[in-house]
């Protein structure tokens, strides 16, 4: 096809160029650098704060001494902190902060992808019933005692992960028949309700008050049980699934042209959608397994990230991941420090802090649109 001359083109629109939106869309490198710095600072602060406050400088030093491949004692001199403090930093608070970061990143990435693939701004990582399935797994194991003891501290995380896969399997069976995204999402909603009912049934009909407490506490979410070993599985899932999603970013972008548009651009939309929803649910299941159900992060952070860098998946996914990590580390700091006597459930913090931030963002955006 030869170039078509200007005379054949449509008449030029009288409206002048308008770049205010692109000005606001800052350079991706800048955003990612700032967010990485914010994450490092947030994690260090989280490790520093607590019943015993440890100065930030000591936190960096303890971590450096522990992870350095060369012994730093010979270079920087002897350790100037107690073994207790080192244990607090390295065995308790650091794995907890990193778990919060990994879970936040997993939920935000899953939410961003879920919104793109369903083209629904209300989609979140739990849209296929992952959270109520996980709750069902935990309730069943707690009340009926399947496999309790054999897996030790991993019993509940494993039960949650296995439970999360139940509604997912059902959804995939359905989506192999129905190629409509609406059908898939509605099946997810229906399965969420089924498993929520099952949780109630198991707890109230079969369980006792003590078991009810255990399950409710787990459902509310939190990082109290985090340790290095429980961090491994979600980190691996995040790295593998996150990489796969980044490799699919151009396909994700094609969905911005609509289902038919993406098909016309050479994509097998139904097959891609099933695979991506699988990845979303895997991320959500890994997150739920270590931290319980934490709402709002997976819904809200993708919108904040899109506000910063737009909806191009290659930009949105890493930004959402880092922003989600920062958000959940900060939320966990608040959950631990707002009350002297008890830890608040982290879901309470994400809702109470996240909600107003979200509304403020929408306010700014829509007041600009109406100019």
């Amino acid at each position: 096809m030869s170039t078509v001359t200007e005379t054949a083109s449509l008449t030029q629109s009288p409206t002048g160029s308008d770049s205010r939106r692109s000005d606001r869309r800052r350079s991706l490198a800048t955003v990612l650098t700032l967010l990485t710095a914010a994450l490092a600072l947030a994690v260090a602060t989280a490790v520093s704060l607590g019943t015993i406050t440890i100065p930030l400088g000591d936190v960096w030093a303890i971590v450096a001494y522990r992870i350095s491949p060369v012994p730093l004692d010979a270079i920087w001199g002897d350790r100037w902190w107690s073994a207790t403090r080192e244990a607090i930093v390295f065995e308790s608070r650091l794995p907890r902060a990193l778990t919060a970061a990994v879970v936040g990143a997993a939920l935000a990435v899953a939410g961003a992808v879920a919104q793109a693939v369903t083209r629904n701004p209300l989609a979140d990582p739990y849209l296929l019933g992952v959270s109520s399935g996980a709750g069902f797994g935990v309730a069943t194991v707690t009340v009926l005692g399947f496999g309790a003891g054999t897996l030790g501290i991993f019993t509940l995380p494993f039960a949650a992960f296995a439970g999360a896969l139940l509604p997912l399997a059902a959804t995939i069976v359905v989506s192999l028949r129905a190629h409509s995204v609406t059908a898939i999402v509605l099946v997810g909603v229906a399965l969420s309700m089924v498993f929520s009912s099952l949780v109630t049934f198991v707890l109230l009909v079969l369980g006792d008050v003590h078991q009810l407490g255990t399950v409710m506490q787990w459902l509310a979410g939190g990082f109290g049980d985090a340790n290095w070993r429980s961090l491994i599985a979600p980190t691996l899932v995040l790295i593998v699934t996150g990489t796969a999603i980044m490799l699919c970013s151009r396909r994700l972008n094609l969905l911005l042209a609509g289902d038919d548009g993406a098909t016309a651009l050479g994509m097998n939309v139904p097959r891609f959608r099933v695979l991506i929803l699988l990845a979303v649910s895997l991320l959500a299941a890994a997150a739920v397994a270590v931290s319980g159900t934490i709402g709002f992060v997976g819904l809200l952070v993708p919108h904040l990230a899109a506000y910063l860098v737009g909806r191009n998946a290659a930009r949105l996914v890493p930004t959402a991941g880092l922003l989600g990590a920062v958000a959940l580390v900060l939320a966990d700091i608040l959950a631990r420090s707002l009350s002297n006597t008890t830890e608040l459930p982290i879901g309470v913090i994400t809702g109470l802090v996240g909600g107003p931030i979200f509304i403020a963002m929408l306010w700014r955006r829509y007041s600009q649109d109406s100019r």
Partner: protein
Amino acid sequence: MTRLRAFGVQARLGERTVLHGADLDVAPGEVLALVGPNGSGKTTLLRTCYRALTVTEGAIMLDDKNIHTLRRRRVARIIGVSTQEPAAFGGVTVRESVRLGRSARRGWLEPFRTEDDDAVARALTQVSLTSQADRDVTELSGGERQRVSIARALAQEPQVLLLDEPTNHLDLRHQLGMLELLRTLAADGLAVLVTLHDLRLAAEYCDRIAVLDAGRVVDAGTPEHVLTPDLLETVFGVRGRIRTVGGRRVLDLYGLVDG
């Protein structure tokens, strides 16, 4: 140069059979208008042509190959499509949206090159959106969004162009500009298939017209041969006739058929 043909295409939407054996033939160098009343199956027939919908009977052929034997990305390098779907989200600029049209020409992980940027710039010029290139798609008017979708199809640098109602959101000036553009593209050797509601535009600008009624192509040919007073009355329920004024075809419409 590629010819697009549909042979006896049947297709279903859910349980309902929408197409009952439709035939089409779009040759390189011509603009074929697909017209028909609401619900006659125009969009459905177009969707079968780019595999958005699978035919239950019949075949869609690109030259001598059935499109279902070709890889999807190969089809996307031959057929460019402008759909009627609305943009889902903001957060994407006009340029990014049009650049999606280059995807089938690059590997999924291969970066876009300058020739892709050039194709995008050409497409934006063709639909007069160059000055809007860095705006967010949700800030555009309906007509401008429609032109983004058309620019994306042009950026595919296709040999066959399928456009679903490309003029329905455009003002009169841009409607005529769009059809002039289609004429130019056809002169360059493209096979252009366009669904239109405005029979007057179809009569004036298109080489041939195919009339779809209740899932069948009931007539196809030059506007003079197809848009007879009889057909206008039975298919569209309007009275009218084509006359030639100064070498141009003009369709005069006189109103609804009585009763």
